[in-house]
């Protein structure tokens, strides 16, 4: 009687509980696998000999998720000149404004973005060049084909300036020294990236769903003589201009005197 009761009532409950536990273990992130993000070089100082840097992003992540890392520094409107042929010659024909475009845009991922998330999710989170084509507007407005072509040109322009980069399959997932599952990616930080605070967002993805995110920051700031000159140029143009002229005149006369004393005179 007791055995029958056990198999009829208790055993299914135990089995269900076991199944739920197993399912939870495979789907939800466990405590030790909570996503973290850390930039190794998060305070970059621009001094007189600055030529860019190397930044690595690492952290702990569930080994069974895919990852996308996005680094941006806010969106802005950027004015550009469009070149086209006029009377058979290439020249600037129109000024365009790229509205709501990221100043800086780096994407790293464990695999192809289209295989990780739906198009709508990529657009909603501004993930990948394809999503940027949806979030950036062009003024004056263009036809759909023209807009697509111009946005491709814009991405090419920004890549040429080293401030846009997309590298898929470039995140290593392994186990760290403490035996925790971790991820790691390293890349050159371009000197073209201006002083700013850059947001690093890491997305964990499983079964086409973003299951977790983690944030970090990279701060780039001017320092020393670079900061002093930059501040002076921006805030005290008259003094800066006068100083530039004074130095130029002094250099010109100085070299002239050196050559004179060296026998250059007639």
């Amino acid at each position: 009687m007791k055995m029958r009761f056990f198999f009829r009532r208790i055993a299914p409950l135990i089995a269900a509980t076991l199944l739920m536990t197993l399912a939870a273990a495979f789907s939800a992130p466990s405590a030790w696998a909570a996503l973290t993000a850390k930039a190794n070089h998060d305070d970059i100082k621009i001094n007189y000999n600055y030529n860019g840097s190397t930044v690595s992003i690492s952290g702990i992540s569930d080994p069974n998720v895919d990852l996308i890392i996005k680094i941006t520094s806010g969106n802005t409107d950027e004015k550009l000149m469009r070149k086209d042929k006029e009377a058979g010659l290439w020249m600037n024909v129109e000024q365009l404004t790229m509205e709501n475009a990221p100043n800086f845009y780096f994407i790293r991922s464990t695999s192809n973005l289209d295989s990780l998330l739906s198009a709508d999710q990529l657009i909603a989170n501004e993930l990948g060049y394809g999503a940027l084509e949806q979030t950036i507007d062009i003024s004056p407005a263009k036809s759909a084909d023209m807009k697509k072509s111009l946005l491709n040109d814009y991405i090419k322009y920004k890549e040429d300036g080293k401030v846009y980069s997309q590298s898929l399959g470039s995140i290593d997932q392994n186990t760290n020294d403490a035996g925790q599952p971790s991820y790691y990616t390293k890349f050159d930080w371009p000197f073209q990236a201006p002083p700013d605070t850059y947001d690093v967002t890491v997305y964990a993805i499983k079964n086409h769903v973003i299951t977790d995110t983690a944030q970090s920051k990279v701060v780039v700031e001017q320092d020393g003589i670079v900061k002093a000159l930059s501040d002076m140029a921006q805030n005290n143009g008259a003094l800066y201009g006068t100083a530039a002229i004074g130095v130029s005149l002094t250099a010109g006369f100085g070299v002239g005197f050196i050559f004179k004393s060296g026998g250059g005179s007639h």
Partner: protein
Amino acid sequence: MYIYLPVAHTSINILVPIVLGLSVGLLSGLFGVGGGFLMTPLLIMFGIPPTVAAATDSAQIVGASTSGTYAHWRLGNVDFRMGIFLLIGGFAGGLAGVQVIKILKAMGNADFVIKMTYVVMLGLVGGYMFIESVNAMRRARKKDVVQQPKGESGIARALKKLPFQMEFKKSGVTHSALVPIFFGVFVGLLAAVMGVGGGFLLVPVMVYMLRMPMHVVVGTSLFQILFNCIEVTFLQAYTNHTVDFMLAILLLIGSTLGAQVGAIFGRKLQGEQLKILLALLVLAVTVKMVSELTLTPSLLLGAAGGGG
């Protein structure tokens, strides 16, 4: 070794601006041109933003032209009186040129006009100087041919009738003060439209229109360029904040030395040889500009405000 440029927000190998400055300074001392029409595109090629390249080049030209003017003054090659009249005209022409650009921009075809003016003016100036100098050298070689003194042209006679005639002793010519002012306006207007200092236009004007000897032309042109670029540097620093001090200093290290070497080297060349070399330089820039206008660019978008 790399150095970071605080206004250009660019890192550059320290040798690049020094060597560029040296090369362009050499041309400046040799031919009396500021070299902006060469230096600005070269700086852009090495990753300096166009607005910063143009403004910083002005600061660099101040140093190079100071050095060059000083060297030529010691050699007795600067006609200060002529230079001042050209400056007055150039200043008025520059103001008019800025208004012309405003109108063209409003009409929407400024870039086309600027580029075509560049190509046509460079081509005409370079071509004319080259042909004229080759012919002059050929004539000089034919020693058996007796040179007939040229009669005064109608234009020359008309110019002689203008008021305010005065002697420009250093240049060995007599002109009405209105003549250099007029040509100063012409060069200043074109220079403002093209966004350059105008040395490569002023040199042919002084040689062919004002009939000044080539060596005095070089020194006087540098004197005029010096003052133009002082004004431009100040305005660019004050209004646009686009002068990069560090870049200017590196360019200056090269250009002030180059200008001195150019001035000394130029004295060893004959006037016609100098003209041919300048003509070849101007024609080379023309060819480069024509190729840029005809070949498909790698990027179809560029920074706004990059100039011509």
